């Protein structure tokens, strides 16, 4: 499996721990489905923990953007935790850093849903 996703629930917030690559084909699709399933269940306070992500391509970035949008459309939020430098650079190059709420520690990411 290109991308492994495991799920933790902390109160209303769901943290998805991503390990592997978010790339065209299986990786992007898997992320798409994992977020889609949560939104279907009405869970829309989402944190993607990217600490274990080793590689992302434009398809993976596109998937992050599109899941950001769908989550917002349900009145929820999709936030990013522990951006690896390479992912941060990709977001930077395409001016997406301003679009996403990003965090470097989990507690702050979770707390940010309270306000």
């Amino acid at each position, binding site marked *: 499996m290109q991308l492994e996703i495991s799920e933790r629930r902390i109160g209303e917030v769901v943290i998805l721990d991503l390990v592997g690559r978010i790339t065209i*084909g299986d990786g992007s699709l898997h992320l798409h489905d994992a977020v889609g399933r949560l939104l279907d269940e009405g869970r829309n306070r989402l944190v993607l923990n990217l600490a274990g992500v080793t590689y992302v391509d434009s398809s993976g970035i596109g998937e992050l953007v599109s899941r950001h949008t769908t989550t917002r459309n349900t009145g929820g939020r999709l936030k990013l935790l522990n951006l690896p430098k390479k992912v941060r650079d*990709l977001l930077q190059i395409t001016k997406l850093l301003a679009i996403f709420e990003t965090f470097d520690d989990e507690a702050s990411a979770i707390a940010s849903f309270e306000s």
Partner: protein
Amino acid sequence: MTFAENLIQLRIASQLEFIDLVTSLTDNLSALAGFDEDSVYSINMAVRESVANAVEHGNRYDPNKPVEITFMIGSANLSVSVRDHGEGFDPTSLPDPLDPSNLLNPAGRGILYMRSFMDNIEYERHPEGGMVVTMLKTRLEISGQTPTVADGGEKRQDAVGN
């Protein structure tokens, strides 16, 4: 058949599963050509994006259309060209992914990444159909660390120099 001593060509059927084969070869080849880790990653990204475009937009996933990737190890750079057998397109009339109204588009960033990660990229239509993108990455020469394989120019220089 004549060939150039610094050439490597790969031709794959249009299957996404094959893209990782191309990028692994690219990594090995970039390392052999003397690029540092950061550059190996940059070239990998650009090759992945260009091959994905050739499969997706060029050949439209038609598995009976090939994608051809040509690597040329030069004394000062690596050139990679990627050719598909699709209808081609006009790269000057694409939406700008940095335009605020496009920021949330789910696609449209690949070519921008290719431009950011390589030193030069150029699109042209192949005379026999399809699109060719040629991308150049310059090697920063680190003294005492020359690639083992390069084009004739460098080799002749070495033969004189040493």
